[in-house]
């Protein structure tokens, strides 16, 4: 190192580094107030609450730690009078911040597990829930409704064909009144919906951004999601797992209707069948 650099080793870069870090913190935090989660349209508000709790905790930690980093860089960028200190251990401090970090994490873990338990308790589907089969395939969504008998018929992969794309087993009496809508899911508001998800080909993920619902579809096994729409309206359904060239356009729509509109729609579909 050249002599003058040893005396004043690029102090201006220390000032610039501190200012950059402070500036980044300021700008990055402001935009969290501009961009937020899509409007919530399901009963999964607990997931959002936890999101905001973690946002608050990590936000405070982010601001404090980055500010300290910037401040230390600025404060200790150069000192004519003093040498660097030889202080390099403090049992009390180290135990303090280890336990402190753990203490912040425990409530996050616990509340996360409780909410996860609620969301995933799909074995507790109530008897009046609407059960629909959602089938993912490159690159569309098919929704099979049970019809008036309330039961969805079986399917056989051997029956897949261009005429019977879902492989519906017509010999199953439950299949008789089932009907299928492509890329169009309709649900009534304020009633539990239970979707049984299966894939015909590769993996997909059923993603309802406004409903805080995401679940992979795995060939060879059935997965499911359970949620309750709380707002009527039109929403977009996305595929969130890479499934091929058309992954980006594997889009469908969810219409949430009032209970009476939904009954009328169902009757109309049954009549068409």
């Amino acid at each position, binding site marked *: *190192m050249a002599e003058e*650099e*040893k005396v004043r*080793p*690029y102090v201006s*870069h220390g000032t610039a*580094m501190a200012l*950059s870090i402070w500036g*980044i913190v300021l700008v990055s935090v402001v935009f969290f107030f501009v*961009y*937020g*989660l899509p409007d919530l349209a399901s009963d999964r508000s607990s*997931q959002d609450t*936890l*999101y905001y709790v973690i946002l608050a905790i*990590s936000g405070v930690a*982010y601001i404090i*730690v980055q500010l300290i*980093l910037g401040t*230390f860089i600025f404060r*200790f960028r150069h*000192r004519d009078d*003093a040498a*660097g*200190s*030889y*202080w*390099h*251990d*403090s049992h009390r*401090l*180290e135990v303090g911040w*280890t336990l402190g970090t753990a203490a912040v994490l425990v409530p996050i*873990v616990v*509340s*996360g*597990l409780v909410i*996860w*338990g609620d969301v*995933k308790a799909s074995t507790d589907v109530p008897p009046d829930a609407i059960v629909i089969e959602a089938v993912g395939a490159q690159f569309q969504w098919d929704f099979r409704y049970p019809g008036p008998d309330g039961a969805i018929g079986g399917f056989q*992969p051997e029956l*897949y064909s261009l005429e019977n794309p879902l492989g519906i087993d017509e010999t199953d009496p439950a299949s008789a009144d089932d009907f299928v809508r492509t890329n169009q899911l309709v649900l009534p508001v304020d009633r539990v919906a239970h979707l049984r998800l299966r894939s*015909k*080909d*590769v*993996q997909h*993920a059923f*993603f309802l951004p406004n409903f*805080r619902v*995401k*679940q992979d579809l*795995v*060939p*060879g096994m059935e997965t499911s999601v359970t949620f309750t729409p709380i707002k009527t309206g039109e929403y*977009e359904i996305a595929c969130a*797992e*890479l499934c*091929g060239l058309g*992954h980006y*356009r594997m889009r469908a729509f969810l219409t949430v209707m009032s209970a009476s509109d939904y009954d009328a729609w169902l009757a109309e579909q049954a009549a068409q069948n």
Partner: protein
Amino acid sequence: MSEGHDDHGHGKQGFVSTYLFSFDHKMIGKQYLTLAMMMALVGGILAMLIRLQLGWPGTLWPSLETFFPTGMASGVMTPEFYVMLFTMHGTIMVFFVLSLAPVSGFGNFLIPLQIGARDMAFPFLNMLSFWTVLPGAIIILISFLVEGGAAASGWTAYPPLSAIRSAIPGSGAGQTLWIVGMVFFIASFTMGGLNFVVTILNLRTKGMKMMRLPLTTWAQFVVGVLGLLSFPALAAGAILLLFDRGLGTSFFLPAGIYIGDQLFAHEGGTPLLWQHLFWFLGHPEVYIIMLPAMGFASDIIATFSRRPIFGYRSMVYAIIAIGILSFLVWGHHMFVSGMSPFLGSVFVMTTLAIAIPSAVKTFNWLSTLWKAKIRFTTPMLFALGIVSLFVTGGLTGLFLGTNATDIQLHDTYFVVAHFHFIMAGAGLFGALAAVYYWFPKMFGRFMNEGLGKIHFWLTFLAYYGTFFPMHYLGIAGMMRRIYDPNTYDYLKPLQPVNTFITVSAFILGAAQLIFVANYFWSMAKGRKCAESNPWESNGLEWSAPSPPGHGNWEGEIPEVHRWPYDYNNPDEDREFTPQWQPARVKARG
């Protein structure tokens, strides 16, 4: 153990044995670094093309048709080309850049110098490891040219997409070459890991106790263990995937798969098995990339703060704890995969537990800066950048490691933002900091400090500009790996964010060219470094000549008398006291 070194002596050697088939750990380290830099250029160009598409989806770029006649036919990017771009960007960057540069490059160059050995324990194996990874890299690059193009199932290569040829165009020869290339990479990396572990355990010079190792070497030691234990799982997975593709087995394929009006005869497998095998490697791999960077940051921050690293012992324990925990967290990539929800809950606990040693490291770095006397050299700026990026990326891990909040954010740009800060950011800034810091030792010349400063500022600011806004995209619900976000009405308002990110990414990419130019220019024309210890540092590597000759030290290997962080020790008369300086015979206190 040192058979390779003594056999061919210290005399003048020919071009082939010096530059090509060298046994010398320093040359092998440089070979790895050069390869990583070449691969980074390719991976970087792929990233620029990805950003081009997302910044201005559907725009015509007729001039690009010349370079990519099929992918950019008539100037519009095709969806299949886009999928290949991000698949190969991820593969190249994670394995052939961020693993090769900090681990294989600097691990090989530094370990013998830092522990006081004349070479690695198995020099022939070391040479072999480079000559095994090179064909892997070539195979990966060639895959762009085969029919159907390069692999297109994401860098995670989830079956059935990666297992069935008709699922996607890249699932033909391109995917096969991807698997073969990865097997070469894994074989090479396993040889390297073995060398790291054996060398560090057995070849330390007199006085170099384990608790006197620099944190860089501690990190490389744990990385060696991680590589040895985790990569074989992916090797097994990759070979089973080859069987599923070519031999009709069904490890990852269940019954009832129907693609292109064809029902496949597979039965009994599950795609989730691949995910388990992949992430059993994949998560330790994240720390394979990050731990060396954390080691570099520790050594560089101590040197230029003129302060001992704070909490050395807890730093070592944190590295070990992170290494162990990294094997117990892979399921957090699979919360919404269909894996048992109960298992998911277990992975939440182990995942958030890893935040504790990570926080300890951060607090230790901050405390090292307390009452420091900082010298803002280019390597120091990059090391401080690592701390800032690590804090940002670490905190966003809380959202993704908690399963209840991961449901919404999984497979969105929030994840892309997260891993570019924590893993890619640490890996990139770590490698760059290391190059600037150890360049005088590698080549006997300094890198140009002015160009280095420009490179740092553009890189640091553009890095935040590129990757921080991706958090907002993810929160707003933008999925990863989509060719055109404007397909969705709710994503259309985000286009200005995407355009901003693209502009930042272009600046970030262009800034790296300054680095490449500086690197090669300085190698030939940089300011000469006559001293062995230009930064007034304490690590043992600074006792060897710059650059060290074959065998590293001309005479005896120096004996080690202290830890590597004795800066401003009040018992000593100098501001820094290197490891090889004997303790002064004087009564303490």
